């Protein structure tokens, strides 16, 4: 732990942070539990938000100092897509991966009947779903849900469907539902499947109302998932508070990288003041032992299901930002000029702020802002001392 006396005084020490009821809120919550905000001279109030729209609007209007955000949201907000337009930046990613695609038992059976097996990979289940849809012709009208239009959930689901030769615009319907409504909507037959963050896949599996067909990791290895968002204006007025906040969260993420800390994390997150859920719902993804369908003999061991600390997880890669922005454009049905994409990502994904914090913690960090995509099937060395994880993308 660094000696914080070297840091400039915080412009504001009482901060309010917004987060959603998701397992990958762990960094924000555990920083509180471990006293790391306090260590950096901050008094933090954690505030649970019910929608990403609310978190964004409160951030922009000053009700929140900083917020957990879906990685595409700072970009979508800076672009003004969907709601309020404002300059939102991030200098720290909070997690990689953490999502899965779950379908109803009926659809899971249809997928299995056509040879789809999640253990064999995401393309196996995607192809089987595609074959099933084509066999039923145009009479099949399936509805899938994601948690937000501009989320990795949407992008992962679209990519998974594409791998099965399914057109996400024509062959089925994708709607948006709040994460907490996913399980119930699946059980009631309102939707046939969804892509969402944990624990909402494991909860469906545990209740026997859903079966996991793909993990987000299988679709995009180590994809950027949540980031710490602040407005450009807030950062300008509170550079030191922002730095201290990033330092506290970076230390928490390093702590979360150790598998032996995950059970303690699940227990803390489960408490009424945080996620208010059974530990058993949070533990599968946090321990990396995911059960794909109820009654399975043994869970799948997925050490990288949630990545908080390893593989330079906190670095807001501009290459990832550009990919996310292009996916946002695809959802909007338009293409953005390359210069606009580059400019917007440079303004929003502040690698300089990550490096500033890494220097204080004397951590090595990438000296380039772009990483290759879809080239490594195993962990690899980006530069001396910098190990990155696999980066494969599911082929369409």
């Amino acid at each position, binding site marked *: 732990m660094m000696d914080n006396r070297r840091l400039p005084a915080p412009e504001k020490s009482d901060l309010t942070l917004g987060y959603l009821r998701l397992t990958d809120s762990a960094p924000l919550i555990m920083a509180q539990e471990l006293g790391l905000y306090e260590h950096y001279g901050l008094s933090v109030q954690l505030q649970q938000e019910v929608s990403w729209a609310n978190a964004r609007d*409160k951030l922009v209007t000053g009700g929140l100092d900083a917020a957990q955000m879906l990685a595409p949201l700072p970009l979508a907000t800076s672009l003004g897509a*969907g709601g*309020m337009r404002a300059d939102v930046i991030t200098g720290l990613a909070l997690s990689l991966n953490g999502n899965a695609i779950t379908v109803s038992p009926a659809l899971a059976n249809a997928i299995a009947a056509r040879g789809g097996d999640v253990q064999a990979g995401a393309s196996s289940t995607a192809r089987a779903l595609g074959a099933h849809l084509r066999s039923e012709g145009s009479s099949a009208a399936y509805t899938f849900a994601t948690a937000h*239009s501009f989320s990795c959930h949407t992008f992962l689901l679209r990519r998974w469907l594409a791998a099965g030769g399914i057109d996400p615009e024509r062959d089925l319907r994708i709607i*948006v539902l*709040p994460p907490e409504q996913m399980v119930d909507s699946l059980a009631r037959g309102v939707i046939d499947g969804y892509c969402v963050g944990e624990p909402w896949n494991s909860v469906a599996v545990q209740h026997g109302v859903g079966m996991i067909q793909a993990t987000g990791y299988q679709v995009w290895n180590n994809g950027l998932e949540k980031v710490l968002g602040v407005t450009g204006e807030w950062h300008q007025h509170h550079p030191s508070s922002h730095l201290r906040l990033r330092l506290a969260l970076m230390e928490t993420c390093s702590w979360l990288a150790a598998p032996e800390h995950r059970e303690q994390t699940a227990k803390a997150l489960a408490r009424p003041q945080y996620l208010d859920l059974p530990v058993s719902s949070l533990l599968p993804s946090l321990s990396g032992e995911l059960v794909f369908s109820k009654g399975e003999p043994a869970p799948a061991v997925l050490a990288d299901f949630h990545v908080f600390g390893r593989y330079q997880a906190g670095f807001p890669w501009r290459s990832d930002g550009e990919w996310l922005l292009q996916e946002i454009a695809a959802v909007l049905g338009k293409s953005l000029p390359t210069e606009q994409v580059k400019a917007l990502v440079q303004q929003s994904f502040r690698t300089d702020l990550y490096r500033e914090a890494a220097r204080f913690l004397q951590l090595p960090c990438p000296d380039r802002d772009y990483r290759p995509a879809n080239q490594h099937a195993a962990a690899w060395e980006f530069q001396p001392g910098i190990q990155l994880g696999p980066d494969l993308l599911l082929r369409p």
Partner: protein
Amino acid sequence: MFSAGHASLAFRHRHERAWLTAIFRFPVKTRTVPRTVHHEVDVSSANPRGTALRLILVDDNRERAAVVEAGLRQMGFEVLSVIATGSGLLHQMAQHEPDVVIIALDSPDRDVLESLSIASTHNPRPVVMFSEAGDEGFIGDAIRAGVTAYQAQDISGATVRAAIDIAVAQFSAFNALKLELDTTRRQLAERKLVEKAKGLLMKMHSIAEEEAFSTLRKLAMDKHRTLGEVAGDVIAILDSPAKRGKQT
């Protein structure tokens, strides 16, 4: 608590910032009765068809929703349904096709509403947000940012009326503007296509401009299609690489 004065502040600021925040666009199946948008602030609670404005109220807090609903009815609005999160906002929107959606600030369905604005530009609807007392700061800032909002505690008379009127007016103004822009864009694109198709026909058949144009117009009339569509077809046929290859 916001008076009508505060509400008109939002109206005044609408050109300055992201005032469209509250004005989402919803894809709804084509309805049989054509809907027209009006350009002026409507001071009555009537929609362009002359009937009462039809609302959907989205709120998880039943008690509060009941109070708000009663207030809205008293003011002459037609409340089509009051729904809580998870009761199928999407379905209700498609079924009822409300004139305005009124949603609680703390409803998880806000992301759902926003997704509708992103998914399609067809048959949009204005949205009004409301909140409990205690969110004054946020609501105030939201209004400054262009969101039309009011508080549940003050549902009597002028405030809600003003909020809804402003939402409808902002929305209509935006919609009219957007429609105008779309039309202009389409006309421009169409004119370009027609010019190009004319040029190709003139070159291919060594005919005068007038004859080329009447050929296009005849094609359009025969096929019951627009001039732009026919021009596009002509370009696709005459200007294809294969065709060009043959010509040289």
